[in-house]
């Protein structure tokens, strides 16, 4: 079964589909920041979930041990990925499942379409899945005359509103209850016109709306949270029961899953099923988890397919510094704690994967040279809250910095002339290389005071540094530099003149005296 690897170096092949932003993060973020309703909704939701997560994580005495085990397990999966995929394939196939391999989004979409057509179906029910969003499956199927019905409540809200998800766990987090009610009243056929904005009533309306679809669907499409290599088992973690409906009632089940979702053994599930629910919805356990291994006679779908998707994952794996981004279990804890996400929301990131993990995963999968995504690694203050929250300890800040460096290097490679940034960095390198240099530069401070004028504020800087003054002023610089002031206060005879490299030594001695 296994192929011999001939040592042919395959170049990184990047992913396509909904991984690319349509505009750079800074301009998208600026627009989204203007939406005060969005900010209020996001602030409320992210704080609610943060508090819940902290509460249930605090209950476990071995949380850090679980994180360490989860991190090491995923590291091991990445190191052994080809071998584990072959093992999974063998076990899943032995129990009647069928595996398909898809190099990219387009190939995955075509495979799914053909499988649906084989069943003579023109509509399918769907369980929420990041992989199918990444490949743009719904849009593709619609073009092909197949209607795909999202059945997760939040996905349903987004689909009915012809909107895009803004969060990987709660895709409609940017909408509040009143907005949801208005969407249902407008878009849901046969909905009670007296529907209130009570979340329980809204959930009931969704139940009534989807019930007939579930009971009559021939084909369902899902993603998968985990695939257990030594058993050939797939797992879907969910809350509403829409997943169970899709995974149990239709005759045909098509699952689309990224190749990185593997776990080596059944025992590993005990780690990840403690980490995932607490990190994502802040619950001790999610209401429903379904596991299936190929086909079970007389129970559930009898045609069981799995599409294994690359779409840029091999490229991310090839980046030694960045490959741990593939450890992600899509819990969304990082976005819930991120000060940037909390303010801009998920749409600003463009890609299917928003927030801190999206800011590394998207450019790793599309390549940092992809112009739409090269601003994503800068969408962070590097505060590190995401790293603390990550259940599998992905060092997101470190990868962000790594990708920033890659971005700078790739741009430098393209141009013959040094950029403004290059010149500034050269200047800074000169200035900070010796006290003499810095002292010389400080002579220019009075010029800054003139520029600041009577209001004692610099409101506009030229060129690249103009970004700084876009949304804030710089106060006028002081009349004298700290170094000058120090020399004067401590009676250094050199006061007023350029400080020498020995200044520090003399004044330190003076202080001790």
């Amino acid at each position: 079964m296994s192929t011999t690897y001939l040592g042919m170096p395959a170049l990184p092949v990047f992913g396509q589909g909904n991984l690319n932003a349509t505009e750079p993060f800074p301009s998208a973020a600026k627009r989204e920041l203007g939406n005060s309703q969005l900010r209020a909704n996001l602030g409320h939701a992210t704080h609610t979930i943060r508090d819940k997560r902290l509460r249930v994580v605090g209950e476990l005495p071995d949380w850090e041990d679980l994180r360490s085990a989860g991190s090491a397990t995923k590291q091991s999966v990445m190191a052994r990925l080809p071998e584990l995929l072959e093992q999974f394939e063998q076990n899943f196939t032995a129990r009647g499942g069928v595996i398909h391999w898809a190099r990219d989004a387009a190939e995955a979409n075509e495979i799914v379409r053909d499988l649906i057509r084989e069943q003579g179906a023109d509509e399918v029910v769907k369980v929420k899945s990041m992989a199918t969003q990444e490949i743009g499956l719904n849009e593709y199927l619609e073009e092909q005359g197949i209607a795909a019905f999202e059945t997760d409540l939040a996905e349903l809200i987004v689909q009915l509103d012809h909107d895009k998800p803004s969060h990987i766990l709660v895709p409609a987090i940017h909408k509040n209850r009143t907005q949801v009610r208005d969407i249902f009243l407008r878009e849901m056929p046969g909905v009670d016109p007296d529907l209130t904005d009570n979340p329980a009533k809204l959930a009931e309306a969704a139940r009534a709306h989807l019930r007939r679809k579930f009971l009559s669907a021939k084909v369902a499409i899902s993603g998968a949270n985990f695939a257990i290599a030594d058993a050939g088992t797939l797992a879907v973690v969910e809350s509403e029961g829409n997943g169970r409906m899709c995974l149990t009632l239709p005759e045909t089940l098509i699952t689309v899953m990224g190749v990185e979702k593997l776990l080596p053994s059944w025992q590993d599930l005990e780690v990840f099923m403690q980490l995932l629910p607490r990190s994502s919805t802040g619950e001790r356990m999610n209401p429903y988890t379904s596991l299936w291994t190929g086909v079970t006679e007389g129970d559930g779908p009898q045609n069981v397919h799995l599409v294994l998707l690359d779409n840029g994952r091999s490229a991310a794996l090839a980046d030694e510094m960045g490959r741990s981004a593939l450890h992600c279990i899509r819990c969304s804890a990082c976005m819930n704690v991120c000060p940037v996400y909390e303010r801009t929301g998920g749409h600003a990131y463009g890609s299917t994967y928003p927030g801190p993990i999206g800011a590394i995963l998207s450019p790793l999968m599309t390549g940092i040279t992809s112009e739409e995504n090269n601003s994503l690694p800068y969408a962070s203050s590097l505060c590190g809250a995401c790293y603390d929250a990550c259940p599998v300890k992905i060092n997101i800040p470190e990868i962000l910095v790594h990708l920033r460096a890659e971005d700078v290097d790739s741009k430098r490679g393209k141009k013959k002339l040094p950029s403004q940034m290059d010149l500034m960095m050269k200047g800074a390198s000169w200035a900070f290389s010796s006290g003499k240099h810095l002292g010389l530069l400080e002579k220019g401070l009075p010029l800054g005071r003139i520029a600041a004028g009577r209001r004692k504020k610099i409101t506009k800087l030229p060129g690249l540094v103009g970004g700084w003054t876009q949304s804030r002023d710089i106060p006028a610089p002081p009349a004298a530099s700290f170094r000058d002031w120090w020399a004067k206060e401590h009676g250094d005879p050199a006061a007023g003149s350029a400080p020498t490299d020995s200044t520090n030594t003399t004044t330190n001695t003076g202080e001790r005296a």
Partner: protein
Amino acid sequence: MSARTVILDRLRSALRDHPEAPEIPRTYRADSGMSAEERIELLVDRLVDYKAGVTVVDETGLAPRIAQLLRDAASYVVPAGIDGTWLAEAEAGAPGRRRVDAADAPLSVAELDAVDAVVTGSAVSVAETGTIILDGSPNQGRRAITLVPDHHICVVREGDIAGILPEALRRLDGTRPLTWISGPSATSDIELERVEGVHGPRNLDVIIVRS
């Protein structure tokens, strides 16, 4: 070249630096050390938190409790392998309501949708997380019967309650079709507020039987 060959080659090529596969540090809890009584108490606490109905009975209390929970059901479904004594009292009180789902005579989805409740046993439960796991054994039946009816009455035996998840998973065969249930169906999709009752059974009643 097939997509399979291409993808596996790409992955092998991506790993040309031969990263090491570390040992997994399994320093987390493998056993809870809880007594049977503690496990029952914790499971009850968790299930109540999920807004499931819970009662703890001894063997003699089981049939009366099931009969009581089925009081208002016009019909209910059970898997063929269920222990008949569980239903004796419900049957005696109001006969003719029982539908049996068997491998050679499965009910249609429409028939399942028409019944009011389902009664099953369970494989293993996890006290710490309030999770009940079904594995398709004869007293639990195929997955559809515990999904379509709106009221699930589930019997949990004291001996099947594990303290924490690792203890529970050791008792299960992962290749069986498994359903883990932690309370009635719920959603947190609107403003991250939990609402019980969406597509799965909106009512979950758990009967814990002491041995």
